């Protein structure tokens, strides 16, 4: 009888530790562990109390099992797992910023377009930050066009001023 109490205490402890999990998964997990204990008992025939203790020890502490559950993707959002999924500011972000700013002058239109592409594949920026960088990129696309228009109106003046001298 002592062994039955050991097992039911363990399962109760597991159920309590799993309180944070969605109800369905909690019940399923307790069932899985209960079946594991039953299979271990069946594999040993008629285990002694010490053997039962060994089976439970090998399973690990209930908190440990629940912690492994929290590491799975499904449980992450509920436990503030966003930092784990979002990576740090890296090469993609630096390249995107450079293409959007300097790139707009070095490679008009193509630079910022590539920058916008990189911005949206970045896993470090939030959608709001991505929108901000995209806005910046559009600004830097417009800017060189305005400058080009000024430049192209420049030579026209020179031509007209040179024109009369030519013949």
């Amino acid at each position, binding site marked *: 009888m002592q062994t039955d109490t050991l097992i039911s205490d363990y399962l109760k402890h597991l159920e309590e530790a799993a309180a944070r999990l969605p109800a369905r998964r909690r019940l*399923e997990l307790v069932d*899985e562990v209960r*079946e594991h204990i039953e*299979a*271990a008992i*069946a594999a040993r025939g008629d285990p002694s109390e010490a053997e039962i203790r060994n089976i439970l020890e090998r399973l690990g502490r209930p908190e*440990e099992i629940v912690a*492994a559950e929290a590491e799975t993707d*499904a449980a992450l959002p509920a436990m503030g797992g966003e930092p784990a999924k979002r990576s740090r500011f890296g090469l993609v972000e630096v390249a995107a910023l450079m293409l959007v700013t300097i790139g707009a002058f070095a490679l008009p239109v193509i630079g910022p377009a590539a920058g916008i592409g990189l911005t949206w594949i970045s896993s470090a920026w939030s959608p709001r930050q991505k929108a901000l960088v995209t806005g910046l990129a559009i600004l830097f696309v417009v800017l060189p066009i305005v400058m080009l228009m000024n430049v192209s109106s420049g030579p026209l003046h020179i031509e007209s001023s040179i024109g009369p001298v030519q013949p």
Partner: protein
Amino acid sequence: MVQGEARNQATQLRRGLLELCVLAVLRRGESYAFDIVRVLSEAGELLTSEGTIYPLLARLREQRLASTTWRESASGPPRRYYRLTDAGRRALVDLSGDWMRFRDAVDALVAGSEEATRAD
């Protein structure tokens, strides 16, 4: 924060390796959780807490890397048997490739540091 990140990376590494091991066990054929645990224990100290296999198996089901079927058993209640899906087989190939590259890099570094120690 840095400590938390290091812990997170250690967790990721352990989790990834265990996942690779479970997928490798399943490649041998359909098995139920208790059998998978037994194979992992016999192979070495791969699973320090046997109970943590259940969260991992739940994730494999969720990601459709493994499919399951319930079967009657001679002793006790029906058992859930796991088998690899095509996606699971592909994940196994990817993960073993990652593991081999990682292992080779670590081996090379460790061998290099041993040589350096001898030269000193």
